């Protein structure tokens, strides 16, 4: 069995309800990832995606369950897990360089100014913001701010990138460029990436596996869609791939109809053993996890999802 790098084990999040009881955003949620994998979570607004990401980041505590990263239960935030926030979360009183340098000095306390600056600068260059180092966030466009957020996250050379709808506020053109950059950087540096998105095409372009989440309250991860597209896919010929529309339709169908009715339709859903949807042929093939494991060798991008 493939070694699990991240393992979310039976987490729940409950908030006090209006009538004194508890409202569970989700219960008993399981998810695992192998090293170097890129996954996307798709689900409707309010289903609990950010909550899962915050728990994984250590910013929020689950009401139940644990998160294990690299063999250890997490106990709070870590410099190994960088977060790219939905709202970029730049410190407005610092310049671009100041924002990135803040992360760098947080990781390497003993570095002198020149070294911090050089390191920060190299990541600013990487995201294509050379020349804007001394601008303040208020002087940047939305896309540029998001780039600073990416540079800041990457500058601490994390092992895991957690991204909460990082591009949702951007126009299509900027989004495309940043998707390319993130994909390139993740592939180059072997990042393990967890990304939340609303954009089906973004998920298909970036993810190795797509996790579909049903509507809350009491949301569940319904199934995992394996991405049949080759690793070296390009953003522009994506839609020419023979399986592209099959994957896309499957995900869209889920979002449009099945995300609401899932709980009623599949009462015997096992959250530890999610069904894996493998679109290997133009017609849909839905395999259970155990079947998927037997076939694993056939697939180029194989997940480490299956578990006993």
């Amino acid at each position, binding site marked *: 069995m493939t070694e699990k790098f991240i393992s979310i084990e039976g987490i729940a999040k409950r908030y006090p309800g209006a009538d004194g009881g508890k409202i569970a955003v989700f219960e008993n949620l399981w998810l695992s990832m192998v090293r170097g994998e890129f996954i996307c979570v798709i689900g409707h607004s309010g289903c609990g995606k950010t909550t899962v990401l915050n728990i994984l980041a*250590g*910013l929020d505590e689950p009401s139940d369950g644990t998160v294990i990263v690299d063999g250890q239960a997490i106990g709070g935030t*870590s410099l190994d897990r*960088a977060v790219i926030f939905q709202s970029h*979360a730049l410190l407005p009183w610092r310049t671009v360089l100041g924002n990135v340098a*803040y*992360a760098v000095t947080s990781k390497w306390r003993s570095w002198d100014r020149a070294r911090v600056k050089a390191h920060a600068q190299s990541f600013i260059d990487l995201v294509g913001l050379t020349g804007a180092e001394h601008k303040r966030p*208020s002087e940047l466009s939305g896309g540029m701010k998001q780039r600073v957020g990416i540079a800041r996250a990457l500058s601490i050379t994390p092992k895991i990138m957690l991204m909460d709808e990082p591009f949702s506020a951007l126009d299509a053109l900027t989004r495309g460029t940043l998707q390319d950059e993130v994909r390139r950087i993740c592939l180059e540096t072997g990042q393990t990436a967890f990304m939340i998105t609303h954009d089906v095409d973004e998920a298909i372009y970036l993810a190795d596996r797509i996790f579909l989440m049903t509507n809350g309250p009491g949301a569940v991860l319904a199934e995992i869609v394996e991405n049949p597209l080759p690793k070296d896919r390009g953003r522009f010929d994506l839609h020419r791939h023979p399986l592209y529309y099959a994957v896309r339709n499957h995900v869209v169908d889920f979002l449009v109809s099945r995300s609401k009715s899932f709980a009623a339709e599949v009462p015997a859903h096992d959250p530890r053993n999610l069904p894996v949807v493998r679109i290997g042929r133009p017609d849909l093939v839905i395999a259970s996890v155990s079947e998927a494991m037997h076939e694993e060798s056939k697939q180029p991008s194989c997940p480490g999802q299956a578990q006993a």
Partner: protein
Amino acid sequence: MTTTSLRFRAAIVSVALFLAFIGIWHLATRGTASVAIMSPEYAKLMGATATQGKSAMPGPSDVGAKLWEHLKRPFYDNGPNDKGLGIQLGYSIARVGLGYLLAVMVAIPLGFLIGMSPLISKALDPFIQVLKPISPLAWMPLALYTIKDSGISAIFVIFICSVWPMLLNTAFGVAGVRKEWINVARTLEVGTLRRAFTVILPAAAPTILTGMRISIGIAWLVIVAAEMLVGGTGIGYFVWNEWNNLSITNVIIAILLIGVVGMLLDQVLARFTRMVAFPE
């Protein structure tokens, strides 16, 4: 272009208003009362008001002349009841400065604590709610009794009146720092102390400075009253003393200077506020 012309036009209106005010003032105090007929000795005793029909209220030219006199030698010292205006203002500013500084040193750390800890915030709330509305001058007898020094008592009163706006604004600013900025620091494993200085302080600084600006205004309001009570020195005492001397001219000059100094103090704090402000 439009802003400069607007500013220019506003300046013209200001000057016109000022001239109108001076003109009306001059007319009102010109002296219209009938002149009584009396013997020269008696007239000497009665003074200009009775003998020349002059108004008891000084006119703008009287005040101007007197002001010029004061400005020429602001720092003379002819004993306890006759000091230059510069010296009197100096005393007041020093008292305000000391009391205010003490208040800053107490209010900002305490405000941080209240803003960061819901427990301390709730625990201190009843005390603050009761202490805040007490007029600072009500503390004066107690301060005089316990401290036994009028100068220090005045400083204490300044301290107590300027501490509340700073305390509340600091607590409010600290508690209201955007969660996402705190989360940035948390994901970077920044320790509590460093987080306080690198994230919370800069984020809350505009709110804190607003509190400090309110405080300096209140402190300057209160010092005049406090010095009237404790006596001895200071611009407040000067006003009271000149009132007892029936020198309305000096009283008017003091009022003018109190206004100008108050404005300058406010401008200084406004500049600091602008320095820490950040556009979002």
